[in-house]
């Protein structure tokens, strides 16, 4: 990991990988909202960081000025040339639909959405529940666990593997690749290794599905025709890689952050145990307070936005987590209210790039919390053992030691 020079001035020289931002971005956003609500940095690349709800959602809807062509928060080689480190089908469109603008965005998204519809997601509930119970059985009698590594991290990757039709036995390998790409994006070697691993794996899987089609997402992408034509190999590969990348770190982080909150706030944990009917509302509140994902946009032409001289090619970091903590949009935003009735949070984004897997993520988070609370209703942070957080594109706990009776 490259050395991060400590940030002195968050308004003009922010760094989302500064350890203070990773562990406690909330006070930094509060200061920025009050003094300079759209911060700037020249670290790595000229980038802007909006912190107000209205600015974040406004920019998310202005797809003419803010393209999704390059969505990595930490710029890398593949930002310039997706095939830089990969000798395979042409990935000029990156990982559509997340890295695409209309019209490519529109039709690639329509191919994915039915796999994550609420009806389809309902059918993944039994598998998710069984998975959570199996994990809990391994440590429930032990009195302590790493709620991130032993539990949260293990759930979404296995569900998404099932949907993609790839082997859940490779879950640890998938997790490693996804972490290399997202969490260690500042380390060119790891980033390249993860990207290559993922793409080459899916290249092989697609070849296999061509010969032996199944009822999985990969097989469907290969046999789908759009306007009478099969989908380009590079686009199928990008979509397949996207589903895994987007379906692992993100929800795992949301489950981990939620368990961290409940471990650190016994009054909320007790309330949720006593009032399980609050769960659906509580899940939305935990998503609001601990939204894991920041995505980038690229400025398409020089514009002045709320006094900020944005240049074509600049990045704008879509700070959905900060939007969710804006006091102009939420009453007492830094207080988690498990029964918050009015909650237009944007943990899953806003506008045409609303997370395509949001129904799945929400279900996984809810089932993971329900099963944990049913099995281990009493738990707390382990004294003297540190929780560690990952940040940047996706924020969540990576080591979360908890103890229970």
């Amino acid at each position, binding site marked *: 990991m490259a050395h991060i020079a400590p940030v002195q001035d968050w308004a003009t020289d922010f760094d989302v990988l500064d350890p203070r931002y990773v562990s406690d971005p909330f006070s930094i956003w509060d200061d920025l909202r009050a003094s300079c609500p759209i911060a700037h940095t020249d670290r790595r690349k000229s980038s802007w960081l909006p912190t107000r709800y209205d600015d974040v959602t406004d920019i998310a809807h202005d797809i003419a000025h803010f393209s999704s062509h390059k969505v990595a928060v930490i710029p890398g080689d593949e930002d310039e040339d997706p095939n830089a480190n990969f000798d395979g089908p042409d990935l000029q469109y990156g990982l559509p639909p997340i890295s695409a603008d209309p019209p490519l965005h529109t039709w690639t998204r329509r191919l994915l*959405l039915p796999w994550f519809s609420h009806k389809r997601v309902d059918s993944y509930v039994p598998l998710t529940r069984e998975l959570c119970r199996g994990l809990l059985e391994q440590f429930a009698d032990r009195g302590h666990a790493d709620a991130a590594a032993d539990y949260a991290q293990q759930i979404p990757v296995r569900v998404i593997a099932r949907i993609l039709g790839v082997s859940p036995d490779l879950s640890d390998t998938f997790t490693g690749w996804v972490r290399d790409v997202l969490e260690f994006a500042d380390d060119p070697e790891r980033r390249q290794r993860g990207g290559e691993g993922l793409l080459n794996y899916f290249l092989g899987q697609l070849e296999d599905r061509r010969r032996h089609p199944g009822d999985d997402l990969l097989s469907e992408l290969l046999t789908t025709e759009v306007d009478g034509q099969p989908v380009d190999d590079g686009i199928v590969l990008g979509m397949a890689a996207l589903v895994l990348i987007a379906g692992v770190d993100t929800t795992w982080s949301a489950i981990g952050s939620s368990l961290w909150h409940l471990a650190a706030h016994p009054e909320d944990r007790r309330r949720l145990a006593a009032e399980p009917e609050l769960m659906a509302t509580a899940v939305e509140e935990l998503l609001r307070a601990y939204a894991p994902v920041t995505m980038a946009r690229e400025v398409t032409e020089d514009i002045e936005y709320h006094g900020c001289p944005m240049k074509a090619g600049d990045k704008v970091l879509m700070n959905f987590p900060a939007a969710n903590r804006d006091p102009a949009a939420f009453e007492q935003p830094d207080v988690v209210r498990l029964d918050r009735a009015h909650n237009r949070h944007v943990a899953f984004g806003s506008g045409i790039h609303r997370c395509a897997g949001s129904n799945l993520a929400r279900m996984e988070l809810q089932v993971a919390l329900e099963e944990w609370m049913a099995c281990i209703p009493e738990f707390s942070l382990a004294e003297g053992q540190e929780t560690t957080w990952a940040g940047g594109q996706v924020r969540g706990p990576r080591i979360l030691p908890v103890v229970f009776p």
Partner: protein
Amino acid sequence: MKIRVDSEKCQGHARCYGLAPEIFDVDDYGQASVLLDEIPPELEEKARLAVANCPEYAIEIISE
């Protein structure tokens, strides 16, 4: 009470369906629709909750 979903604004967050499946459906592509021409009084509170939780401001009360 009558309500509608603006299909141009709806982006498929499905918050309305989650809060009030008696009132809303969401299709395979995330597009929400209102199942009831007239919202009965006992569901009005739920309809208002859906309005207040839509991140896209896509649900509108046409008449009270």
